[in-house]
Each structure stands twice: as C-alpha cells, then as structure tokens.
C-alpha cells in the first residue's frame, strides 16, 4: 500500500519543491514535477476509490478484477488506490488515465463491469453511460463528447479547498502531497513565523471550529499559547460519531497529509511538542492510513526532533477511543485520554487553560485543522474572501436522504440550502417533494421547506433557530415520520448520554418515554391515555427547556433540539399521532391500520391463530376481517400471511 520513493526523489521533493518559494522553477524541476503529478504519464494509470464506503460497495473486488485484467492482457499500468471523491451514491468509482488523454471517472464499477470498461477505454471508446466525467489536465487531450467533472452541478457549486485531493491523489504517498505543494505551509511557519504570529494569522482569518462548536480557532490557540506551562498539547478530534456523518473520515482517508500538516502548524502555534489524534475505534481503515502517513512524515523529517532545523520538536500519536459519542466533546475527550470515564467537566477551567494532565490543551476538529495549511500559504485575507462576508471559508457536508446524488461536498459559506438540495444533489428521486431538511445530526435541527432559502453560515442559521452542526445534512421526504425521527435521535442521545448530570441523564429518558408513548399503542386504549399523551407533549416542551438550560455539556444542552424543532414545524403530525393514532408516513408500526384484502384472502386462518389480541375474526376458507379496536398494530399477521392479502395504511 505505501508508495516507495527513492532517496533522490525525497531530496528532490524537499529541496526543489517544498523549499521553493520563488515561484519560478527551472525547466528541469518543472518537468519532473509534471511527471510526479501524473500530468504527463508514459503508461496508463487506474485510480480506484477504496475508502471505507467504496470498499463496502465492492471497490476491493474491483481492484482485484482490474489487477487480473492487466495481468491477463499483459498491459503495464499503474493502479493507485485513492480516497473518496465524495460521490458516495456512485461507488465503486474507477478512473482511467491513458497517456496523453485526460483522466476519466466511471461510476458503479463493480467487479463484474471492470473488464468491459477497461477494454472499451483502452480501445479509445469508453462507454458514455458509465462515465461520470473527465478531469482537466494541462497538456492532455480531453475526451470528445464527455462532460467535464467541474461542469457537473455536483462539483461546479462546490469549493473544494480542503477536499481538493480526496479521491484525486494517493493518500498513501507523501510524495504526491509534496509535489502538489504540501508541507510548504509548515515549512514556512517554522522558519518564518513565531507562534504568536501564527495565532495572529489564524485569528485574522476568522476560521471557526468546524466540529460544530464554531469557536474562533485562533482565539483558542492564543489562550493556550499565553497560558504559562512547561508542556502543552494539541489534540485532533477525529472521534466523529454523528450517525450519518463521515466527513472527518473522508479527509483522513483521502488526504491524511493535509491533516498532519494542519496539526503540525497548530502544535507550533501553541507551543506544543506533543499532539494526539483521537480516532474512534470503528475507523479501522483510517487508522491504518494515518499510521502509514505518520511514518512517512517521520521518515521525511517533518516529525520528530528539530524539524527543518528550527529547533521545534513534534511527536504525533494516535489514540483509539473506547467508543462513546460524548467523547467528541472536548473535555470528555480529554478525560478519556486520561484513562477515565469520558464524562465532561464543568467549564471553567477551559481546556485551553487547563486540560490534559492539567496542561493547556487545544482540541480541534479534523476539518478545522485541515483548513490551516491553505490559510498559511494564501494568507488570512484570502480565507476571508472565500465563503460569505459574515462567514468566511467552506463547510463540508454529508448529504443524504433520497436525493438523486448523495455523498460528501464542500461548499462555500453563504450558499443556500436550496442550492445544495436542488442544484448539487439534484433534488429528490422521482422528483418527490421535500418535506424538511435535518441539519446537524442528533443534536441538530429540522428546517422546514419555507426556510430552505437560508444561506449557510453560523449567524444566518442561528437566525432561523437552527445551527451548523458537524456536517450532517439529511433531506427528508414524505416517507419520513417526523415523530419517529425525533424519537430516533432522542433514543440515540439517551444511549450516548454520559450520565453525569441529572437533566441529560434523566431528562432524555423521560423525553424518550413521552415520544414512545406517542408512537406506540397501549393494550387498552382510552380517553385517559389520550389525555396522558397530550400532557406528555406539553411536559415535553417544558422539560426540553430545562434540559437545555441546565445541562453540563453540549450534548445535554442540544439534546432537545430534534424534538423541539420537529414539534415546532410539524405539530400537526404530532397531533395526528396523539389524537388520531395515525402515522401519515406509515412508519410507526404500531399505529398502522392493518386491513385484509378480501379478494386475496384464502381463509387459511393462520393470521387468526397468530394474532396475540384475537383481533381477527373469520370462518376457515372464508375471507377474514381485522377488528380495528382490538388491533395493537404488532404486524404479526402481516408477517405470516403467505398470500399477501394483508396490507396497512
């Protein structure tokens, strides 16, 4: 997996590429760089996206099939494993670059399609129905009649700064990163800037934490830098546990060196000689990729003692988390690193003043750190010019739902939510109407359709009563039950609550019970029960407010967001569940009304035998009937009927 580069290439890369700031490379250097960047190739190159989701879609089998094909045909070609380009709904993705021609991207290339596609392309007629698009490579001939990737709305509306290498260059080769300008920022930093200066640059850029907190990164660094201590720590928070969000993983699997560079600069800025990357244990592949990347960085002298002869020492270590969503909270993370239960502590003291082992500690999200190198190279005013005036920079989202295209995107701040849904993701399949958008995962908010024109930004989202979150964006259609969604998130948070403080530990339990009461059917239905459910919902709002006001950490403080936001915009649906015992999306199983189609029913009597409440009446060999008042909606009859004569509304 690791690409080997000879000592000469290493020296070349460091002396001629990395350390060159003059911008006027000599011809020889320029030539070599072009080759190393694969802008001019002598033999075909096949790129396969073997990130985690690609692998699960079958990319490893695709890889084996490609290898087999090349061996069989005795074609000499290079196969490079890359990360994910973000078009997850089209995986496995395979790119072919023939000498002299631009690189071509193919979608859904499962192992059975490899031979066909490779054959056709090597014979200069790639099948257009499998093509996603082609890259633009200077000096290479574009393919006729095939779209360019950057013309596709999915890509044209994005601003891929942080993700520019993901799915494009190899995450296993530090050479690929350096030849594209990598580690220049780190070199510039340690040789030209004081720690103070770096903090100043970051503050001027107005970069905000991309983990969801939105705190000014430069300010945090400044606090840590100015707090006197013999030891400081930088921690990269890669514990990404938001269900449905894997933006951090994408960066790690696609461009680990960018992250390492960001961490190094941040460590320098606060005066830390020890940095930790805190990864969740489920991320097996990212762990391997990072271990390999760190080793290469060490081999190149970018980590260790006296980096670039500057006197700066840096060790970056990997720490694998034991598995808890709450450990994404910075104080809980630090407790976990100190081998304790991952329970947050009451702030103050803030980690930047007193954190890991009592020393000043800065905890930054992967995406925040991945933004750092570009800010150093291009300057803070460049960063402020990206995105929108009130909110510079880009934001990486995991787009999901029944959209035509799904995956990970990087958009400039200021873009409208509606543009993300309709222009980038192409709207919903079958042009289904959008019901709402859920932003921010379990601690996030749902945004109704009349607010989808909102610009993405910290302030703009706060104004509509929502917030940025860590990057989860799910487009909901009518098949989604909002009450069930709120229940799902609340159940998740209840499970993940650390249990330290009363409002979160007990409060989320009670909220969940109230929601379960709404979506389940008791054995005996009565007006009293209805009143109880209604009272429950009223209590819910009061409870949610107290939980928000009194919880110790962000998890508790935001635990009631899904419930409150769905209640605010979809109160009717709640009332249907409570009063009419009806789930319009048909998701709440126990609220389904089961009916027997008399034309299909053969009277086999099986459902009557299995019904736990004796709600089915009928004579053998005659169509049966379900008594609605006795039916609890368990669905057993539906499951056992061999003639598909039972359906539900």
């Amino acid at each position, binding site marked *: 997996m690791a690409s080997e580069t000879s000592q000469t290439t290493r020296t070349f890369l460091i002396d001629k590429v990395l350390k060159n700031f003059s911008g006027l490379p000599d011809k020889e250097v320029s030539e070599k760089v072009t080759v190393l960047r694969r802008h001019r190739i002598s033999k075909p190159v096949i790129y396969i996206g073997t990130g985690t989701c690609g692998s699960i879609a079958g990319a490893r089998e695709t890889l084996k099939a490609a290898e087999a094909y090349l061996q069989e045909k005795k074609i000499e070609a290079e196969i490079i494993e890359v990360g994910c380009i973000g078009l997850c709904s089209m995986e496995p993705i395979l790119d072919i670059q023939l000498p002299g021609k631009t690189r071509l991207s193919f979608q859904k290339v499962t192992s059975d399609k490899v031979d066909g596609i490779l054959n056709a392309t090597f014979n200069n007629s790639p099948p257009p129905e499998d093509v996603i698009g082609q890259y633009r490579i200077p000096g290479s001939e574009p393919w006729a009649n095939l779209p360019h990737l950057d013309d596709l709305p999915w890509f044209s509306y994005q601003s891929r700064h942080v993700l520019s290498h993901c799915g494009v260059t190899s995450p296993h080769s530090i050479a690929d990163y350096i030849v594209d300008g990598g580690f220049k920022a780190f070199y510039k930093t340690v040789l030209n800037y004081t720690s103070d200066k770096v903090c100043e640059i970051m503050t001027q850029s107005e970069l905000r934490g991309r983990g969801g907190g939105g705190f000014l990164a430069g300010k945090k660094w400044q606090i840590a830098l100015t707090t006197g201590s013999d030891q400081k720590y930088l921690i990269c928070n890669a514990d990404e546990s938001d*269900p449905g969000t*894997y933006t951090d993983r994408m960066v790690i699997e696609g461009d680990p060196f960018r992250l390492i560079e960001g961490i190094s600069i941040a460590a320098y800025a606060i005066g830390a000689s020890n940095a930790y990357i805190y990864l969740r244990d489920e991320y097996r592949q990212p762990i391997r990729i990072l271990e390999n990347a760190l080793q290469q960085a060490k081999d190149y002298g970018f980590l260790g003692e006296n980096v670039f002869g500057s006197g700066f020492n840096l060790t970056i270590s990997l720490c694998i988390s*034991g*598995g808890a969503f709450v450990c994404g909270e910075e104080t809980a993370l630090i407790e976990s690193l100190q081998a304790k239960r991952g329970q947050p502590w009451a702030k103050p003291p803030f980690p930047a003043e007193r954190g890991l082992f009592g020393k000043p500690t800065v905890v930054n999200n992967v995406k925040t750190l991945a933004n750092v190198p570009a800010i150093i190279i291009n300057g803070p005013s460049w960063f402020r010019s990206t995105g929108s005036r009130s909110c510079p920079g880009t934001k990486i989202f995991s787009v999901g739902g029944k959209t035509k295209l799904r995956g990970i995107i990087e958009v400039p701040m200021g873009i409208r939510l509606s543009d993300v849904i309709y222009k980038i993701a192409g709207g919903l399949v079958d042009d289904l109407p959008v019901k709402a958008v859920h932003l921010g995962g379990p601690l996030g908010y749902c945004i109704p359709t009349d607010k989808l024109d909102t610009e993405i930004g910290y302030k703009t989202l706060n104004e509509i009563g929502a917030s940025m979150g860590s990057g989860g964006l799910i487009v909901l259609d009518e098949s989604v039950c909002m009450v069930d969604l709120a229940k799902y998130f609340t159940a*998740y948070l209840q499970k993940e609550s650390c249990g330290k403080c009363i409002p979160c530990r007990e409060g989320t339990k009670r909220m969940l019970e109230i929601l379960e009461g709404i979506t389940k059917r008791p054995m005996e239905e009565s007006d009293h029960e209805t009143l109880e459910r209604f009272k429950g919902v009223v209590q819910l709002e009061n409870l949610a407010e107290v939980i928000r006001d009194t919880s110790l950490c962000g998890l508790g403080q935001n635990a009631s967001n899904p419930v409150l936001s769905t209640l605010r915009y979809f109160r009717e649906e709640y009332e249907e569940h409570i009063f009419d015992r009806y789930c319009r999306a048909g998701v709440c199983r126990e609220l389904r009304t089961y009916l027997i189609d008399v034309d299909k029913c053969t009277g086999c009597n099986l459902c009557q035998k299995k019904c736990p409440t004796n709600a089915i009446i009928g004579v053998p060999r005659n169509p049966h009937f379900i008594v609605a008042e006795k039916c609890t909606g368990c669905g057993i009859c539906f499951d056992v009927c061999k003639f598909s004569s039972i359906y539900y509304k």
Partner: protein
Amino acid sequence: MLIPVLQAVQEETGHLSGEILEEVGKYLNLPSNKVFGVATFYDQFRFKPHGRYHFQVCSGTHCHVFGNPNLLMEMEKMFHVKAGGVTRDGKYSLEAVPCLGACEQGPIVLINNKPYPGMTPEILSKIIESFKD
C-alpha cells in the same frame, strides 16, 4: 494507559472477564472497581463472549430512516434474543452498533466483522440457513 491496555487485551481474549480485569488492575496498580467503571463506559468493551456468529446491526440515521427502522426488532424476534445478548446455545449474538459510515449501502449488518450491505430479513434468513450446518 488503561484504555489501550484493555483494547489490546480484548483483541487477544475476545472479551473481558472478571479475572482479566483483576489482572489488568494489578498490572496498572488500579483497583478493579475503577477498571470496571472505566471499561463499562465505552461501547467497545465486552464482558461476555460473543456467539459463534456475531451480528452487528448498524443503527445509523440512514439505515434507520431510509433503510429499515424495524430491522433490529425483526432480528431480535428471529433469534429470540435481545440486542446485546447471546442465544442460549451460544451460536448467535446480536448487537446494535453506531453508524458505520457506509450510508449508501444501508441497511448494513456485519457478520463476524464482514459487511453485508443492503440487508433484508429474507437475505438474513438465507444466510442463517447456511450457518446451520
């Protein structure tokens, strides 16, 4: 130190028994109650052995909302065991796991760490049949 040690030990032994925790406590000079208190906080650590076939159902948002919200419940009915438990004969164990991050291919079930994307109860029944021998 404690968490990496527990992770390494579990890698070897499969689960953490009482004796193992005592040993770890002695090795790190920590009371066994503290070790247990820390270990039970995290999802990763198991205190009972798995079944021969261990089923992990992804409980991520996409697998739930757009996949099959009832998959776990149906599997519990199928195995007659609640999530987190092992069947009496020790053959099957069932666990709900946090989002695996392969939302495109949901609903996902891992069987002995091998991912099975697009799982349905029908496919599952066939797989279990094949395990019966």
